[in-house]
């Protein structure tokens, strides 16, 4: 009986979805609110940004895709933000902050007279509510638990004062990337409900926020629409409307920018970006970014308590072997070939975009196969008679090398690396796996060498933690789970420095420790950092100007992203229309779609299509003719 009921409900569901088909208007449709007076020329229209990675959730407690965080910071304030010049902490909702002499409380003074977009005053009580909700929450911990782990309580003695009490001194208090939410809205969403809460407008009213923009419409897989928040305390953005559109393929994203369907494109593919370069009316920005990629080594997989696990090759526990494998990577070639030149060769785990924190090693491990060979000889892995290096037991020294199926760059990188390692006389067994499989293999310790990467946030704590002993795998019953460490690196000095930086609230002193830690990682080589890929962005210079890069300069003559930054800098500075003439250069008179009229791909494709049709017709006509003759 139960099964029959089950089937019936299935049929009903199917019927419902068929009904939904009959009326395309079934999609949630709300009245578009009447546009409020726009201070700029009416012809400007919305500022439209295209990307390929749709936001997974508008709810700041559940989103995990990087683009989602751009939405949150447009909607909600944080206590502090990252400066556009060097990522140092600067005021956002908090105008000033003070650490108590005993280092156990932090007092933030918030802006006065700030209101939410619905007119309700935004006070320190909202901030305290948000922090307490995370501290005492369960699911709420998922995205922000790391920030509040050290905070015991949040209090609001008055409307503009927020006091956070901490267990031990911590520098993270300047970098609490926690979005302050309106208590009067979120108190009605309990700890269970919050998990699947969509935080999208349903009744036609915008989502209550306090950032430069408020969310007015979201269609999953299609677009996200914002309107300028009239209650925003900062400078009013010049574009009244802001739209993010999803393009599911990289070529279409580039074409949409050329045509002018969008004004800005982010995370462009290298080949698409190359095609946009030099197009009239389009400014391309190969921006220094916060990602690095690495070849990682199994330095001796173990549980956090030191119990060895997995089947990693013991040779990789020898630092000389890892250094040899480090020397055998031609990073510049990887940048040129894998990234089409859009990136910089890698060295340490804090990317150079973070000018203050990045350590540029004094003695770089350059591409040097000879030196690599010497190191392997020293480590006791000599070349055998057939040009193959031999393991301690006399068999060929063999490593497994894992690349990621999801990433073209990863696949190309492991191909190059395999070649260099084989030049060294090593036997390499390369395999492509999915990322979730790789995490599992990393966790079990069942790997030798792998390719992956990380995105590093302005505060280095999280990234540095991934190399601590405590982040090795853990065991629950019979199941082994991965920690954050995928190299299983464990070093006493490093762990000591990690603990030191975690309580050092003096910025300069902490920077010094962070640099020492990078040096240890560089020398011990759990990772060979291969490259820092650029973020490829482009925009219509005839539609917008005065975007600002973060950071403006990285020291090696490069600059950072112009949108999708830490903070909403460009949204506040950018102006519609082409830049006022006089400085020449990038602004262009013509629209890109006219200039780009003759696309070589289309021409070749068109000719090929015509030829194919012609050949097809000719063949069929001939066959018909012959078969007709046969009949006759």
């Amino acid at each position, binding site marked *: 009986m139960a*099964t029959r009921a089950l089937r019936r*409900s299935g049929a009903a*569901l*199917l019927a419902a*979805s068929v009904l*939904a*088909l009959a009326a*395309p*208007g*079934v999609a949630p*449709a709300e009245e*578009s609110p009447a546009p409020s007076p726009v201070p700029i020329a009416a012809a400007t229209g919305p500022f439209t940004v295209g990307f390929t990675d749709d936001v997974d*959730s508008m709810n700041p407690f559940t989103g*995990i895709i990087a683009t989602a965080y751009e939405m949150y910071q447009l909607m909600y304030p944080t206590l502090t933000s990252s400066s556009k010049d060097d990522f140092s902490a600067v005021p956002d909702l908090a105008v000033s902050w003070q650490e108590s002499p005993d280092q156990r409380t932090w007092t933030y003074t918030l802006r006065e007279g700030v209101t939410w977009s619905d007119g309700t005053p935004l006070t320190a009580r909202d901030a305290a509510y948000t922090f307490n909700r995370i501290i005492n929450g369960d*699911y709420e*911990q*998922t*995205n922000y*638990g*790391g*920030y509040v782990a050290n905070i015991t309580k949040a209090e609001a003695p008055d409307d503009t004062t927020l006091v956070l009490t901490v267990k031990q001194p911590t520098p993270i208090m300047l970098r609490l990337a926690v979005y302050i939410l309106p208590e009067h809205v979120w108190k009605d969403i309990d700890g269970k409900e919050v998990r*699947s809460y969509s935080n999208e407008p349903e009744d036609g009213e915008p989502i209550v926020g306090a950032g430069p923009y408020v969310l007015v419409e979201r*269609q*999953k*897989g*299609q*677009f996200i*629409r914002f309107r300028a928040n009239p209650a925003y305390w900062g400078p009013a953005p010049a574009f009244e*409307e802001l*739209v993010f*559109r*999803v*393009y*599911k393929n990289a070529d279409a994203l580039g*074409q*949409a920018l050329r*045509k002018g*369907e969008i004004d800005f494109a982010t995370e462009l593919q290298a080949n698409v970006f190359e095609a946009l370069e030099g197009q009239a009316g389009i400014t391309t920005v190969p921006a220094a970014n916060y990602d690095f990629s690495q070849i990682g080594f199994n330095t001796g997989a173990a549980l956090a308590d030191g119990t060895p696990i997995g089947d990693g090759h013991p040779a990789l526990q020898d630092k000389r072997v890892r250094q040899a494998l480090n020397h055998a990577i031609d990073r510049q070639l990887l940048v040129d070939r894998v990234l089409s030149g859009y990136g910089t060769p890698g060295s340490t785990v804090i990317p150079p975009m973070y000018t203050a924190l990045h350590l540029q090693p004094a003695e770089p491990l350059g591409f040097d196969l000879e030196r690599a060979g010497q190191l392997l000889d020293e480590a006791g892995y000599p070349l055998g008679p057939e040009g193959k290096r031999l393991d301690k037991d006399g068999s060929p020294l063999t490593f497994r090398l894992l690349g990621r199926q999801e990433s073209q760059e990863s696949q190309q990188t492991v191909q190059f690396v395999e070649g260099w390692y084989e030049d060294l006389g090593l036997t390499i067994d390369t395999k492509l796996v*999915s990322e*979730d*499989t790789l995490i*599992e293999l990393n966790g079990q310790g069942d790997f030798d060498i792998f390719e992956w990467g990380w995105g590093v946030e302005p505060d280095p704590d999280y990234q540095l933690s991934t190399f601590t002993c405590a982040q090795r795998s853990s065991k*629950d019953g019979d199941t082994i*789970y*991965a*920690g*954050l460490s995928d190299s299983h690196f464990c070093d006493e000095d490093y762990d000591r420095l990690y603990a030191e930086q975690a309580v050092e609230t003096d910025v300069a002193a902490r920077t010094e420790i962070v640099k020492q830690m990078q040096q240890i990682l560089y020398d011990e080589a759990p990772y060979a950092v291969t490259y820092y890929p650029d973020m490829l962005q482009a925009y219509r210079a005839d539609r917008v100007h005065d975007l600002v890069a973060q950071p403006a300069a990285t020291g090696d003559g490069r600059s950072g992203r112009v949108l999708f930054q830490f903070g909403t800098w460009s949204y506040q500075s950018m102006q519609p229309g082409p830049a006022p003439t006089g400085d020449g250069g990038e602004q262009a008179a013509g629209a890109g*779609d006219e200039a780009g*009229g*003759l*696309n070589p791909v*289309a021409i070749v494709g*068109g000719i090929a*299509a015509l030829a194919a*049709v012609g050949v097809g*017709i*000719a063949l*069929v*006509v001939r066959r*018909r003719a012959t078969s007709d003759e046969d009949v006759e």
Partner: protein
Amino acid sequence: MGPGARYALRSVASGLGTLLFVVVFNFFLFRMLPGDPIGLYTRGRNVPPEQIEALRAELDRPLLEQFVTYLANPFASTINSARYNQPVWTLIGDRVWATLLLVGTAIVLASILGTWIGIRAGWRRGERFDRVSTGVTLTLYSMPEFWLGMILLITFGVGVGFVPGVFPIGGIITPGVDPTSLAGVLDVMWHMVLPVTTLMVVYLAEYALVMRASLIDELGEDYLTVARAKGLMDKVVRRRHAVPNALLPTVTLILLNLGFVVSGAITVETVFSWPGLGLLSYDALRGPDIALLQAIFLLFSIGVIVANIIADLLYAVLDPRVRA
């Protein structure tokens, strides 16, 4: 109970049997996938270790317990996607109508146009219309959807030379336009032109060729000679006698294809950024998001099974011999 009813009952029963098998098979199939979804979703995020443990514990309940819960109601609104933290059927509901609209329209147009071409070509076999139409449809049939879509997009979306780019590059509606208004409906249709054309052009050949072939099979039949001998006009012979008999294989084909409507056209959805089920299933495979995968596959299977049952039943109506 007549033989017709018994036949109908048998079709439906075997369809439901297949469905049950799919439900059970899907459950175990996806649990054989390797991987650590929670590790992937929490990587690079500031998630405290206790929370990661809690999330993993949710997915690691005993297999039997999971199976019983799932089998009790595979359509339960409590089944959450591990990646999106939303009920899986809500996620699917958001996407399914876009896919149905796109693929459904393309199949309907392609079957009408294809059948018409097939009839004309088959009836006057070997003449110029036949030669040209067969050549063209075969050529279009052999084009990769992705490539054809890209060419149409660049030519009519961006514009090439003197051809203006009048159609949108992607999406289903212009942001900010109310889909329930007349302008909204027109806007959706305007967005549909290129993706529907791409799919239709690719599907066209199948219908044209099947219709043409089955009509040619009928051409030599005695009953057509009799009809002609009665002095019926050529047009009437074709419409009243030949086509109805030749239509059977085409009907089956249309119905079977309708079953695949929900599984959509991943490539065309990708080229034109169409917000359908195609990309959702791709995303679900990464992770893997088992709950979402299960639901999507169940929906796809239901589509095919239901279309099969309808085809079976309709066949019996169209061809009395089947019932016997």
